[in-house]
């Protein structure tokens, strides 16, 4: 991952930002808004992860979008303008457009979630929810630790059994056997984990929660700016309807606020980069 503004601000601020942006895309449901949001999400994703984000976009978000369009056009027959008949099924323009808008919105949301998964690592979630839900967040962290362990162990066991000449040609039974071996193993080995927790004082009263991040002035400014832009977006009355016929409303300020909101990480990252280039030139 490259240097990034959202990665460096307080995780609570970053999480609030993602929540506002994703809510905006879902609630507005306006093709222009979705397109703006998607473009910003793509730009941000490729800043964070380069070609890998494009792979996710074309390999996952685009197919889902296309399926959405097709399903909506084939199974929804509302709308006044008939485009053509497919056998006995009437395909209306409104249904196709609605499908297209939904596809744009879903793609935008998927890409924002992708960006969020890059920035908001598990430890940041734990930080955000650690104070409200201390034991749940510890459980979450332990799960994040346990799952990769479990998966790699399952691979080891399947391999060991194959090398032992068991489960020849019986994929399903071999798999079930692996699961049963895994369960025994996990239960046995969790004793060690429990011992290690007890040995380090887990269960004593008055457990604290380490706050790895603090609040800085910039974090608060960022959060406040996101709130103002979010307010402008929701207050501007952007709306879109397909059925029975296509209608939309929205003013320039709303869209500009949305564009600024969605593009904020990319703009801020670009600004940092320029400042860095400039200060580097002075070295």
């Amino acid at each position, binding site marked *: 991952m490259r240097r990034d503004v959202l990665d460096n601000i307080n995780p609570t601020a970053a999480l609030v930002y993602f929540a506002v942006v994703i809510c905006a895309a879902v609630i507005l449901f306006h093709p222009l808004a979705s397109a703006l949001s998607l473009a910003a999400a793509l730009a941000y994703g490729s800043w964070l992860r380069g070609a890998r984000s494009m792979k996710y976009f074309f390999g996952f978000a685009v197919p889902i979008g296309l399926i959405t369009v097709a399903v909506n056009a084939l199974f929804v027959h509302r709308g006044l303008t008939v485009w053509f008949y497919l056998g006995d099924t009437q395909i209306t323009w409104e249904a196709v457009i609605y499908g297209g808008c939904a596809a744009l919105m879903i793609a935008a949301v998927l890409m924002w979630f992708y960006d969020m998964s890059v920035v908001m690592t598990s430890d940041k979630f734990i930080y955000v929810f650690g104070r409200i839900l201390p034991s749940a967040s510890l459980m979450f962290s332990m799960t994040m630790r346990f799952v990769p362990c479990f998966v790699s162990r399952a691979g*080891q066991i399947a391999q060991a059994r194959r*090398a*032992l000449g068991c489960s020849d040609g019986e994929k399903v039974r071999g798999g079930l056997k692996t699961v049963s071996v895994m369960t025994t*193993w996990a239960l046995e080995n969790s004793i*060690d984990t429990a011992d290690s927790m*007890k*040995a380090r*004082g887990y269960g*004593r009263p008055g457990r604290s929660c380490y706050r790895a991040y603090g609040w800085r002035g910039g974090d608060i400014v960022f959060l406040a700016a996101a709130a103002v832009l979010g307010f402008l977006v929701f207050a501007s009355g952007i709306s879109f309807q397909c059925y029975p016929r296509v209608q939309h409303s929205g003013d320039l300020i709303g869209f500009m606020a949305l564009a600024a909101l969605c593009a904020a990480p990319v703009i801020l990252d670009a600004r940092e980069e320029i400042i860095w280039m400039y200060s580097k030139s002075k070295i």
Partner: protein
Amino acid sequence: MDVFKIEDLTFTYPGRQIPALSNITLKVHKGDFITLCGRSGSGKTTLMRLLKPALAPHGIQSGRIAYAGADQEVEVGFVLQNPENQIVTDKVWHEMAFGPENLGWDSETIRMRVAEMVSYFGMQSWFHKEVKELSGGQKQLLNLAAVMVMNPRVLLLDEPTAQLDPIAAADFLDTVARLHREIGTTILITEHRLDYLLPLTERMVVLEKGRLIVDETPAKGTALLAEGRHVMFRSMPAVVQAYAKAREKGLPVGARAPLDIHQGRQWMESLLGDVPLRRRRMEDASSATKHRQDAIGDDMIAVEAKNIWVRYERHGQDVLKGLSCKVHAGECFAIVGGNGSGKSTLLKAVCGVKPPYRGRVRLFGRRALMLPQDPQSVFGCETVREELEEMTGDAADVQRMAEEMTLSALLDAHPYDLSGGEQQRLALAKVLLGEPDIVLMDEPTKGMDNAFKDQVGAMIHRLTASGRTVILVSHDIEFCALYADRCAMMFDGVLTTSGTPRHLFAGNHFYTTACSRMSSGCFENAVLPEDIAELLAENLMPWEAAPEKGAACGMGAGREEKA
């Protein structure tokens, strides 16, 4: 000042007749560095756990354990054997903060202590990593750091390096020694790998069947064990064994046993002095027979790999890079080499779990099965009997195999309730029920004490005696030198050299047995404690008592003996 005062401690597990610990009296002074040794099941772990109330086992206890300090629970830190299972959270930094959080420290204090610990242990480069990205050695260092961050006065370590490769193990033990030296932490450690640890420690406590039999400095303690020809002696460092073997032969070896290679070399030099050497070379007993086997030709080849290439991911690195080798039928072929050199991958290629994408492996119609590194990975049944029945439908076969592996008394036990050695035997029994011609073993001695290694060695000899071929990979050079017919060294995806253990390890200067390192310069080809004792004896015996042809010296004499 005594940190722990243990008086007449006896401990019995519920439902057992024989106590796990009996009449232990031990004082642990402030700043002690104690190695606690003993065979598996001698009560080491029980004793350690009784010193840490949170981990103390249930049972009947008499006698007294007095701790001099305010809060035994916080001031005694404990590191367990398995690096993987001890880690609780998914991030390195979170793991470090876990203990302090439990003690209710505020964030500012935690930040300071963690920063201090990370800097002291040199963990900066992987502080932000996820636990799953770490190597085994790093994981165990993390466990140590996560305990040390709570600032314990006493550190208990229960076989902390059993699951690590030798280099990571040495690294870990060095860090522990540094904690003792610089921070003054009182340390109690149990270990099988005494070669490295014993010279670092100040006191050696030996348990046998729950009784304390030795509590001395390492130099005196090892000499005591050598004198008594004790079973535990097999677990002592190779240097000490060379000393004891020489002593058995009646040589004037001195009262002080050398502990490490440096001392060993000095000891040898002082013994030999200016004596002109009559014989300085060990001959290779097995080389002649193996050459004959080579001459027999290809029908004696059990496994032939020709230019094999293996990788795990399509865009990943090659792990095996055009490896070729031949393994003879009925021999034990051992592959040594560092971490990530591709040893285990070669075994997977041979048994077909990971076929090469180029080149080929020929088994000539033989069946190759692999004994997994961790026996638990093939246990999925409720009883030992079911485990065995899974491999064969024939009840008679199960009985026969159980007897052969001395598991008959345990047929109705749960596989996880067996001891480490028994689990290994059960896994091997499962392998053998599959009627393999070739048995592959991945690190069969990992985490085992020397007495158990001898059992594994005996098992290997039984297999080869019955005409089966054994291919094993190991980090354990001493074990390979003792039990393999041929050894090969793996590096960077190919086998660099191969030959008889003596040939390979005498040729190496760094990657070789302790005895070979100790005797290089004085003797040639001496790789085992026996070799050193034998050569010392021949050179130091009075002239008249010397063996035949005493006057003819050097390599020539050795050759003639063979001929």
